[in-house]
C-alpha cells in the first residue's frame, strides 16, 4: 500500500497542492486524469523527491519514507533512452548505475526482450529503431528497476494508435506479471478506461481529487463497450466542468 498524506506544495506563496491525499492499494493500477497544468507533474516530482514538498507524509507498506526514489520505476512521455547505449544496455541501466550487470541480469533482460517483442534488436541503438520499439525498451527498463511501484507520466501520449494499443497490453502485463503498484497520468480517457482499476479525476488550483471511479471486470477492456462509453462521457463532462 502506498499512501500519500496531506501533500502540500506552494510556488511563490500560491498553493499548487494543498493537503492532497491518495491511497494506492498494492498491485493496483491507478490512473490520474486532469486538465493541463493542474499539477500532475508537480505531484510526480514530489513523489520522486525531485523537488521538496512543503508538507505531508508518504508511506510505503506502512513505513514512512521521504520519497519513492529506488522504490518506484519511472517511465515518461519521451522514451528517455540514451542514444550512446544499445537497447539492451538501456534496459539494464537501473542495474548498471548500481553495479555491473551479472549474467542473471542479462538473461532476465533478454527474456524481457522476448516478451516485449524486441528480440534481435538487443544491440541496436535507439536511433536505429522505431518510436514504438524505443518505448517498449523504456518499459523494459521500468520493469528492470526491480521496484515494487511504477510511476508512469503520460507514457502513451507520444505514440501512434497501433503502438498505443500494443503498449496498453504491455502495461497490463506490468501489473499482472510483474505485480507492480502503478500510478499513471494521462490525458486520454480511453487509456484510463482500458487500464485502470481506479480513475482519479483531478481539479486544479490547487490540485485536488474531484472524483474517484472504481472499475471492475476483467482486463483488457473495450472502451467502446456501452457501459464504458457512458462512463467516458461522464468523465469528459467532469473534466470539462473542471476546466471551465
Amino acid at each position, binding site marked *: 500500500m502506498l499512501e500519500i498524506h496531506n501533500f502540500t506544495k506552494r510556488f511563490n506563496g500560491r498553493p499548487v497542492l494543498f493537503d492532497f491525499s491518495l491511497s494506492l492499494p498494492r498491485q493496483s493500477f491507478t490512473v490520474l486524469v486532469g486538465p493541463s497544468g493542474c499539477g500532475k507533474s508537480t505531484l510526480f*516530482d514530489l513523489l*520522486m*523527491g*525531485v523537488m521538496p514538498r512543503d508538507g505531508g507524509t508518504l508511506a510505503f507498506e506502512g513505513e514512512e519514507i521521504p520519497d*519513492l*526514489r*529506488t522504490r*518506484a*520505476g*519511472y517511465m*515518461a512521455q*519521451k522514451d*528517455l533512452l*540514451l*542514444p*550512446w547505449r544499445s537497447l539492451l544496455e538501456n534496459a539494464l*541501466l*537501473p542495474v*548498471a*548505475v*548500481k553495479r555491473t550487470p551479472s549474467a542473471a541480469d542479462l538473461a532476465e533482460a533478454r527474456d524481457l526482450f522476448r516478451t516485449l517483442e524486441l528480440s534481435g534488436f538487443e544491440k541496436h*541503438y535507439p*536511433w536505429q529503431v522505431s518510436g514504438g520499439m524505443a518505448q517498449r525498451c523504456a518499459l523494459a527498463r521500468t520493469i528492470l*528497476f526491480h521496484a515494487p511501484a511504477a*510511476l508512469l507520466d503520460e507514457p502513451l501520449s507520444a505514440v501512434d494508435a497501433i503502438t498505443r494499443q500494443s503498449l496498453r497490453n504491455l502495461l497490463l502485463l506490468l501489473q499482472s506479471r510483474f505485480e507492480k503498484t502503478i500510478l499513471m497520468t494521462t490525458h486520454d480517457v480511453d487509456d484510463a478506461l482500458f487500464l485502470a482499476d481506479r480513475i482519479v479525476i483531478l481539479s486544479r488550483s490547487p490540485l485536488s481529487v474531484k472524483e474517484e471511479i472504481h472499475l471492475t471486470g476483467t482486463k483488457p477492456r473495450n472502451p467502446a463497450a456501452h457501459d464504458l462509453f457512458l462512463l467516458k462521457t461522464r468523465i469528459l463532462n467532469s473534466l470539462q466542468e473542471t476546466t471551465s
Partner: protein
Amino acid sequence: MKARSLPFVTTLSFLCLWELICRLRDLPPFLLPAPSRIAGVLLSEAPLLLRHACVTTFEILLGIALSLAAALPLSVAMFFSPTLERSLSPLLIASQAIPVFAVAPLLVVWFGYGIGSKVVMAALIIFFPVTVTLLQGFKSCDPGLRTLFFVMGADFRRTMRFLYWPWALPYFFAGLRVAVSVAAIGAVIGEWVGSLEGLGFLMMQANARLRVDMVFACVMILSCIGLLLWSAVSFLEARCVRWVREPEKNRTNLL
C-alpha cells in the same frame, strides 16, 4: 563534382589566382612571393622547416594535453558546485579579455626561454573554449534524463559516467576543434617573444632578412598543422559520438 574534392578545388583556384596576380603585376618577392616560389622554399628548405615544425607541433600537443588536464576536472567541479562556478566565471572571462601578447613576455620570464613558456601559452588559449563548452554541455542535459537518473538512485559519480559525460561529448569536441585550430597562435607568439627554435623563431629570423618566402612557408606549415589537428579531432569525434551524426547521415535534402 564530388563534395570531398571541393576544398581542394577551392584552394587550388585561390593559389592560381595568387600566382597570376604576382606574375602579372611583377610583384617583388620581399613584398608578396608567388606560391611557386614558396613551394620552392618548402622543398629546398624542407629539413630545416621540418626540424622547427616538429618543435612547434610538440609544443602545441603538450599545450593541448596541459589545457585538457586542467579544463576537464575544472569544468566537472564547476558543474558540481554552482558556487565555484560563480566564483571562477569572472576570472575565466577576464583571462580571455587579456591579449595573449601582453602575457607572453611574462610567461617567458616565469617559465624561461625553453619549451615551457610556449606550452603554457598554447594551453592558455585552448583552456577557455574547452572549459566553457564542456560546462555548457553538462548543463544542457535533458531534464527528463536527469530525473530518470535521480529516481534510479544514481550518485553524482555514476550520473557523470553514464549520463553527463557522454551527453557533453559533442560539446567537448566542438570546443576542442576550435581550440586546436587556434593553439598554434599561442605557441608561435611564445616563440616570437623569446626562443631559439620553432616555426615562430624561424619566422622572426626570416623576417629580419626580408625572406618573406620563408615566412610564408612557415605560415603554410602552421596552417597544415592546424588542419591536421582539426581533422584528428573530427576523426575522433566521428568515432566517439556516432549517435549525433549517424541518424542524420541520409537526410541529405534538409536545408
